[in-house]
């Protein structure tokens, strides 16, 4: 079904992506990620000694601070912090540095829809910039579904408000490996078919949700490519000569 989007994109088209790393000097890792007009800046500090009182000292803990563009920190920001923390906990290897805290600071520069996915992507890029070991990267995408059942990807703020329901989905990034096919399978399915986080707002039917999942997964391959390309250009010279 053809849909007219305000900026002329077709339903599966993402907004232009831009990613830049190492923009801050004091932070151990930093990245800025923008999808169209939505721009988020992420900074990583870590690992630092000590954990908070109610955290498990046998593992590394993650702390997320979400700073909105204007105004004080309120409940929605706290919610974003918790979601981001859980997502990052599942991609970082927590057993390497026990009893340490890694801090993430997310600064919203501008919000034009799909804010949380943009922040998750920025946080991943900042993690790579800081050199913190991870199991795999995560790519996040936002899908909306409308009353008639079609779903569109990467909505702007206006589109988000008009839609019946939207979902933020985070997938592991696609693997580019030299090992044979069988080694990255988890229970018989390739790892990209997994899902890390899903946050839904509004009411959508089960079929709509699965439809969104498929579309989101397909688009996450494009996002993974973009992430890989932009991070690879930051790597020094020829890696085959290293070590």
């Amino acid at each position, binding site marked *: 079904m053809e849909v007219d989007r305000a900026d*002329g994109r077709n339903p599966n088209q993402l907004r232009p992506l831009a990613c830049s790393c190492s923009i*801050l000097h*004091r*932070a151990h890792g930093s990245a800025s990620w923008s999808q169209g*007009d939505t721009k988020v800046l992420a900074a990583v500090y870590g690992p*630092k000694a000590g954990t908070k009182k109610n955290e498990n000292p046998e593992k590394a803990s993650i702390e997320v601070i979400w700073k909105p*563009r204007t105004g004080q920190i309120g409940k929605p920001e706290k919610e974003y912090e918790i979601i981001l923390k859980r997502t990052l906990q599942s991609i970082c290897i927590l057993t390497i540095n026990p009893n340490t805290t890694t801090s993430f600071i997310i600064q919203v*520069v*501008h919000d034009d829809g799909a804010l949380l996915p943009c922040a998750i992507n920025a946080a991943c890029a900042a993690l790579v910039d800081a050199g913190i070991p991870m199991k795999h990267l995560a790519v996040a995408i936002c899908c909306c579904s409308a009353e008639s059942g079609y779903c569109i990807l990467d909505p702007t703020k206006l589109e988000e408000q008009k839609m019946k329901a939207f979902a933020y989905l985070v997938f592991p990034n696609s693997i580019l490996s030299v090992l044979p096919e069988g080694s990255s399978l988890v229970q018989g399915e390739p790892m990209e078919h997994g899902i890390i986080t899903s946050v839904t707002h509004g009411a959508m039917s089960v079929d709509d949700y699965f439809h969104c999942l498929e579309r989101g997964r397909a688009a996450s391959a494009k996002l993974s490519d973009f992430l890989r390309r932009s991070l690879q250009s930051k790597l020094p010279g020829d890696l085959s000569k290293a070590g």
Partner: protein
Amino acid sequence: MDLRLANMWRLTMNEKKFIKTALTSGIRIDGRNPYEYRKLSIKFGRQVSAFSYIEERDTHIHVHKWVSWFREDGSSEVQLGQTHVMGFVTGQLVQPYRDQANEGTLSIYTEFSLMANPSFEPGRLGEFAVELGRIVDRGLRESRAVDTESLCVLAGKLVWAILIDLHILDNGGNLVDAANIAALAALLTYRRPECSLGGEDGLEV
């Protein structure tokens, strides 16, 4: 949380001595003269891109073009060497103070976050952050950089309250200057929304 203090970055005695002796002979550690400034770059507003659809009638060519322009929305990004500060300005209609019934208000909110300085604890306003806010506030208010009387919509009932948010992204020294420039630059790009009064009460547009 107290264990975090172990991560505060401290200068060693040797470094302190080196900086002091270099200064007495007029040399600074990055090679500048005592009165020389670092490179300052100010970015106003926000780069906005939109997909615009242009159709050529004769040849039936549909051209999709990315058009980008400058949206003035009261934001600025200032870089002074390694120091990075962002300023955002927003306005709200509020009731004025009783003793200043026909003047708007200007307030500055600055949070010296963990992003700029790893030793800062979130949620608590440090002394330096408060002082920085006060310096910028006094500078703008006492120099009358903002004409508060023009912020009045309905005397005694509705005035504009301008809030300036300064986000310190990177602390590379001299935050006072960078914050002042960011606040002023953000104010320069801010356009107050139009509002008109109608009927018996004030109706905003």
